């Protein structure tokens, strides 16, 4: 009588290697989610028309980005994963984005069978979201996957929202570690300027027994958008003048083409297709240092109808993060703060600040890699599974090798 692994090997298609079998869907499947009456989670994809985006860019320490990639995405060995995340060498910057969503609706065309009224007809959520985006590249680790599975993605090591429902959906469905915050945005002291701030729950110091409280995490102030006479320097010194130069614009476009990611991001300035990547994981209830589920999830934020692009004079943009108490741990990911809180403001000097309006569609949610899960109580381990094809290669997948992960993702 053959054992199950032996039987599986015998049933493999001619020419297929045993390890390919391990990359088909295995482990628990078709587990129904018990919909609670009080649950407010909203099904993706989502449509967000008329979003106002204020963005600020500053140089980032590449070593910190690599550390974040290693701690968050490059788990296990490279051989097991088949990919490695690294910082995008052509865009060594972090971008802080304030997004004001006047309307957030589910655009899921499929019946969800979980209520009388389809989610897209239930109403509108409006909220503000703030995140720090770091461009990272996922490289395939062999000559074929280096071509077909290399992809530009955006890691969001810090993301906060003002709506509880959005934070829960982000954390539990999409693998984005959304924290709930009080976010204020609006016009600053001058007309056509911007001012935004975030208050987060945190601990003002790390002494035992210290009570959590809401503290300001970051505050951003700008002068009016350019052109304006309210600048502290000659506007000709601003980055915006770069875009007025034909030669410089050409050089930028060339650099973007060379990077081969021009369709994904215009040098990171104005995203058109921003594929986010996050680690979706849940703790074991008893052994809280263990994960019962761990996967890398990507989603596409597709920007369209871009309008009203305006730049701020970066010299007049003030960004102050609070390096106080528990916030130090957050800042260590993307700022050059020390290992302990300085209890002072950490000022960032941006190289660009701009705003624009756009419609954003958030779709193409994919589990691109599930990490193996070891389990107790006699339960069988769940092996790793991957669906790593780059977006452009998905329409011709199969050409480079056998199809994998056929049913897990939506397409």
């Amino acid at each position, binding site marked *: 009588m053959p054992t199950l692994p032996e039987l599986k090997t015998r049933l493999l298609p001619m020419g297929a290697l045993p390890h390919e079998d391990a990359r088909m869907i295995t482990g*628990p499947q078709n587990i129904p*989610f018990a919909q609670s009456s009080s649950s407010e989670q909203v099904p993706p994809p989502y449509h967000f028309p008329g979003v106002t985006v204020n963005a600020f860019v500053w140089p980032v320490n590449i070593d910190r980005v690599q550390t974040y990639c290693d701690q968050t995405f490059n*788990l296990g060995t490279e051989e097991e994963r088949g990919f490695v995340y690294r910082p995008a060498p052509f865009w060594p910057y972090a971008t802080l984005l304030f997004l004001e969503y006047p309307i957030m609706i589910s655009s899921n065309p499929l019946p969800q069978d979980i209520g009388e009224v389809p989610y897209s007809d239930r109403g509108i959520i409006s909220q503000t979201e703030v995140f720090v985006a770091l461009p990272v590249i996922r490289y395939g680790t062999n000559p074929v996957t280096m071509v077909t599975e290399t992809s530009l993605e955006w890691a969001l*090591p810090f993301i906060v929202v003002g709506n509880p429902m959005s934070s829960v959906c982000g*954390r539990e469905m999409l693998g984005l570690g959304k924290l709930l915050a009080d976010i204020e945005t609006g016009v600053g002291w001058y007309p056509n300027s911007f001012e935004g701030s975030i208050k987060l729950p945190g601990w003002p110091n790390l002494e035992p027994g210290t009570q959590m409280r809401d503290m300001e995490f970051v505050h951003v102030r700008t002068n009016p958008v350019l052109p304006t006479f309210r600048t502290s320097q000659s506007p000709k010194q601003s980055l915006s003048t770069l875009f007025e130069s034909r030669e410089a614009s050409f050089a930028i476009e060339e650099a973007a083409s060379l990077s081969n990611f021009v369709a994904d991001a215009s040098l990171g300035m104005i995203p058109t297709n921003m594929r986010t990547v996050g680690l979706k994981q849940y703790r074991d209830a008893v052994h809280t240092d263990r994960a*019962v589920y761990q996967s890398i999830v990507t989603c596409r934020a597709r920007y369209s109808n871009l309008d009203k692009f305006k730049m701020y004079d970066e010299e007049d943009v003030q960004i102050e993060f609070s390096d106080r108490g528990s916030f130090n741990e957050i800042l260590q990911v993307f700022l050059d703060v020390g290992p302990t809180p300085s209890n002072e403001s950490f000022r960032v000097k941006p190289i660009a600040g701009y705003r624009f309006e756009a419609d954003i569609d958030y779709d193409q949610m994919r589990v691109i890699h599930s990490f193996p899960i070891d389990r107790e109580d006699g339960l069988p381990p769940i092996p790793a599974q991957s669906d790593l094809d780059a977006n452009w290669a998905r329409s011709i997948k199969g050409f480079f090798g056998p199809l994998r992960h056929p049913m897990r993702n939506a397409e």
Partner: protein
Amino acid sequence: MTRFVPNFSTNELLPPWVSIGARNWVFALKVKHKNLQGYLDSHFNCGAPDVAPFYYEAFEYPYGLLRVTKHDNFSSRHGEQSDSLGAGPGMHTLSKIDMNWAYPVQRWRVSPDNFRYDRQVVWVEPMAFDNNSYSMFSSREIWGTEVDMARISLVEETHPGRLHIDVAMQGLQTFTPKSISHLIGVLHIEMDPEVSSDLLTELEKHPGLAEFMGVLFSSIGLKGSPNTIHNSEVNTLKQFRDVFNMQVAVYRAIIAPRTNQSNVTDMVFYDGSKVELDFMWSQTMAEALNDFFDLHYQLDGKRSMGHPGGADDIDGNKVDWSLPRLRKDVVLAASFTSDITYDVTGTLHTYGN
């Protein structure tokens, strides 16, 4: 072992949790058996796709508890037992108010031959709110209770005595494509805490309430009581959705947390008929009110509207109370102060194997 990757956004408050000097208010509500059993059938007794080797059965006495607890010193003791993989040193203590709807049920173990044996009393919490996002994430992602974020105010005054509790959450009054989510009222409670009552008198008024209170008392330890072990096991359904399919879970398991109420002092009982408890109807809350409390509202129906005594803000946030008000009778109320320990004892069943 698959190591959980901790970072600041997933550094939840790891159990065990301890609340020192928590102020508790409990309101016993009478509900139909079908409302108690319905949640058990949809969350614990059904196949998903495999059936857990347990059967959950509601007691015949038709009561549950609406519990509101004000925690001024709520902290994690996880770091005292092992190297902390959650919040760092000093990042353990917070204050919050939570509210939940809970009731005891019978959990039977079921043999492969479908024989029920080994009956145990456990609690379930079908509905819960918390006004601290940090502990809300911890409850959902570790403990397994589906807690919703809420704005909660609890005002306890003396001379004259007054207890006033308001709960509000982000939601939609009615479901239409143009409705806008905003902060809407969920619940309002008003009572005079200085008008106490005798427990025996109250128990005689309501059939089955004495048995229900017996279960309740077995789970709390009065200060000075020789028996210091008063654990009450809670069973939760911990589940997380697939990334794009709302109907599929990537993880679903029955978790067995437990709570221990000790050093219980200042126990006072109140005549439930003296308590004003109003749920505010909205389409966001409609299913919960129907499923858990058998409270209904027809859009063309004539009901009382709004917050009694006028609209109130919570934490400086404007709350929309212009909603139909559904009164729910309270059979008995009680207040007490206690130390509470929350812990997780195990995973009873993991689905999908």
